[in-house]
């Protein structure tokens, strides 16, 4: 492991020596006020799986958008098979055999799998669709690469993992040989992730070349051949995976050593802070229950995690718990106060802090300044207002204190418009606000989603610090590592029910995965 790990990218060296299918040479892309890509060179060998690693805002998405024709580079060139090409739009990219699976799928929900796959390249005769031919081809492809799909299933009815396969089939149907995967594992269960890895290896065997954007180091180590690391718009280097380690990669990505283990001492649970009894929530989209008869307790000084695959009622449950939606039956008690029907403000006063799942939709007023956002839960308190007038000095100094204490970085300090801040710092601002507010229960939903390793480490530390200060923490997370590392108890939610309570110290990721996919359930403590 003593090999040099920061190889300088070798512009000007003999290019033709290696068989590169795509070369992005010296790409520079500037947006008003920022250089998103600064002289980045990325070379994709034929038939390799090439990971692209970097923090949020490092320029991964911009670089891939340039390759896929969504942006044009200011400087630099793209070569395919050694020849310079111009990619002005996604159609050009498609014609060059470049396909992309976006992080958020681009599927027509009410169409069938087959209809989605052929969308845009429909085989037609005199204006009439020739679906049977297409179906044959799709079935052949799905067999060839082990992508099991039902061509006649409607997209909105199938699982996320299945939808992803449809996206992949879309690329294959268009004969793409260069496949870009943008954070493909974010929405998958551990089992599905393993399957995807196998599928990617299959592509490699068939000679396709893969670009794999991610910030999950385990997956890179498992599947990639080489990895290019970006940091703050610059290329840090390209390394061979078998000559590097997770630690090296994370150091390249963040610029410093990062600890992966969450350091925490034994939990010392105290009194029950939150007690949920037989809570049922009606679904908004269909007539069924989104949350069915959920009961559990959270004590002071422990982190309880609700694990599960996205869409199994967690969002609805949290909405009901925090007061954004109504519960249809059941009882919620916080610090001895019945808050089943209380307003959001009352719940907040009773001691609930809430780091919402969608920070930009719920957590922040993006067009407000940082200081205005930092008092979003407290502006009405006497500390910040007198006779209906905001005490701007008090707000300013309070914001200054939080910014310093929680290291929230921004261009202009308290008066920065939050929209201009990076995602990590936006989240830090929310964490600062919710942690500093007087509270007994912290509800944190996906607190690290979309954040880079450095920020994740930071937020985990804060959650553990809250726990150690004898606060109750209720965490909802879809990230298995986070669930396993952070929580003191795990509740698994499947189709709106708690199907198991696990101890992270004695359970395995595989077992957790079985619970999450509904394959296994155990009797949960009766209340």
């Amino acid at each position, binding site marked *: 492991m003593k090999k040099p790990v920061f190889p300088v990218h070798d512009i000007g060296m003999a290019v033709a020596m290696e068989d590169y299918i795509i070369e992005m040479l010296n790409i520079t*892309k500037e*947006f*008003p*006020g*920022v250089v*998103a890509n600064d002289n980045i060179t990325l070379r994709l060998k034929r038939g390799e799986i090439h990971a692209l690693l970097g923090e*949020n*805002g490092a*320029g991964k*998405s*911009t670089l891939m958008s340039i390759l896929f024709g969504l942006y044009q580079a200011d400087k630099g060139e793209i070569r395919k098979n050694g020849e310079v090409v111009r990619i002005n739009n996604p159609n050009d990219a498609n014609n060059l055999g470049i396909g992309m699976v976006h*992080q*958020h799928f681009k599927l027509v929900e009410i169409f069938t799998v087959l209809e989605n796959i052929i969308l845009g390249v429909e085989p037609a005769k005199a204006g009439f669709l020739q679906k049977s031919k297409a179906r044959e081809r799709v079935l052949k492809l799905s067999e060839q690469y082990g992508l099991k799909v039902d061509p006649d299933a409607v997209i909105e009815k199938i699982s996320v993992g299945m939808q992803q396969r449809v996206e992949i089939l879309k690329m294959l149907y268009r004969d793409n040989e260069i496949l870009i995967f943008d954070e493909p594992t974010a929405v998958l269960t551990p089992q599905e992730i393993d399957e995807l890895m196998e599928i990617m290896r299959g592509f490699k065997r068939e000679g396709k070349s893969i670009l794999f954007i991610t910030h999950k180091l385990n997956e890179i180590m498992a599947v990639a051949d080489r990895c290019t690391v970006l940091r*703050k718009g610059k290329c840090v280097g390209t390394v061979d995976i078998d000559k590097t380690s997770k630690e090296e990669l994370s150091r390249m990505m963040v610029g410093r050593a990062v600890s992966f283990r969450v350091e925490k001492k034994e939990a010392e649970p105290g009194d029950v802070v939150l007690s949920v009894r037989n809570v049922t929530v009606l679904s908004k989209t269909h007539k069924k229950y989104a949350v069915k008869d959920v009961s559990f307790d959270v004590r002071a000084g422990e982190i309880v995690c609700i694990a599960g695959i996205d869409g199994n009622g967690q969002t609805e449950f949290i909405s009901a718990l925090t*007061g*954004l939606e109504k519960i249809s039956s059941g009882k919620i008690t916080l610090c001895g106060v019945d808050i089943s029907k209380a*307003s*959001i*403000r*009352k*719940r*907040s006063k009773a001691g609930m802090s*809430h780091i*919402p799942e*969608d*920070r*930009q*939709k*719920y*957590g*922040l*007023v*993006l*067009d*407000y300044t940082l200081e*205005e956002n930092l008092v*979003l*839960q407290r*502006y*009405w308190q006497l500390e910040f*207002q007198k006779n*209906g*007038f*905001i005490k*701007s000095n008090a707000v300013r100094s309070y914001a200054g204190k939080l910014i310093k204490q929680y290291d929230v*970085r*921004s*261009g*202009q*300090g308290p*008066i*920065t418009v939050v*929209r*201009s*801040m*990076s*995602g990590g*710092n936006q989240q830090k601002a929310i964490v600062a606000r919710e942690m500093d507010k007087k509270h007994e229960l912290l509800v944190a939903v996906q607190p690290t*989603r*979309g954040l880079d390793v450095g920020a994740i480490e930071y937020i985990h530390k804060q959650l553990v610090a809250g726990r150690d200060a004898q606060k109750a923490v209720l965490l909802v997370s879809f990230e298995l590592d986070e669930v396993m590392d952070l929580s003191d108890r795990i509740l698994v939610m499947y189709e709106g029910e708690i199907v198991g309570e696990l101890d992270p110290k004695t359970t395995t990721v595989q077992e957790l995965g079985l619970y999450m996919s509904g394959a296994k359930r155990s009797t949960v403590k009766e209340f």
Partner: protein
Amino acid sequence: MPEKKNTTKKVFNLESVLKSKGFSAFMAALFAIFLGLIFGFIVMTVASPANSLPGFRTVLLGGFRRLGDVFYFATPILMTGLSVGFAFKMGLFNIGASGQYTMGMFFALYVGFMLKPADGIHWLICVLAGFLGGLLWGLIPGVFKALLNVNEVITSIMTNYIGMYLVDMLIQSNGAMYVPSKTRTAYLPQSAQLPPLGVDNSSVNISIFIAIFIAVILYIILNKTVFGYELKATGYNRFASQYAGMSGKRNIIITMAVAGALSGLGGAFAILAPSTIPGSSMTYEPINIIAANGFNGIAVALLGNSSPIGIIFSALFISHIQRGGTLASLFGYKPEIIDIVISVIIYFSAFSMLMKSILDRIVKKRREMRTKDHAETGGKDDPDADNPARALDNDKKGVN
């Protein structure tokens, strides 16, 4: 504050000035006006080439010859502009300013004719009645929106018609107010008319000062108070305001009531203005027409970027152009031409974002020139700030 942080020494820093929100909105408005005027000139040239130059000059400068009238006509649209702009701040589109305006006018008229309090305070009570009338008429869409989630645009369009027909009916059936032979209201008693400012041949009166004062009050409410904080937060992001425990329903009702009251004041100010001919007064003709000043308020609010201070200036500007336009008829231009010019200005003001991006590009070019000339000096800004690529990245991750 932003100026301080970003200024690199000596060079005039266009960038930092442009970064301030108010300035760019102001510049965008100026650009809008400029382009609108060019287009207006083209329209006038097409309509009558020979007269276009003197005619256009009159449109531009004619208002200065009638300053009193500029202020007089600015008052009602300033009020309706504030009304629309205030509701905009909360994300509500108060298209019902016309109905509220008409209601306010009727209440003011009613008190003017039917009550006979002491002379000194008669007009004041009329104004307050107008305030109340508009408030009630604004309350209706507010209550419907808050409690039944009925779109305020639909309700307020309906209240425009209901208000107008109701007022016309009430006036026509009231012998003390209506003169059937002239199809208009009778002359208001002198005591009910607003104190004039003493400009010859002009109805300009004390209400322009009241209107400007109200604009300043609104500015303070929006920017310094808890209510303003909640109102703007709701306007920017109603989900976040809900999450923060703000009472959206209450705020919607209050906002619409205030917006209605502002329009109502506009109507009162218009009808209570003193006449230049002694013994007469302003009159209202119940001829089933929805008050145009309500819709002009939308234009005023747009051009003023919904800011109370901006709206003062946009109301004055639009009034100025309208006065000039009236005078342009001396050169044979129809008032409709002027309406077209004003419409064009409003149309272009919708492009204010485009104008701003053009300005940004100019700034960027300047900066590039500068960095080419001099070697890089001075500290760099925090890379996290103003980072659209990052924001974009986050946006992508934020969805779903």
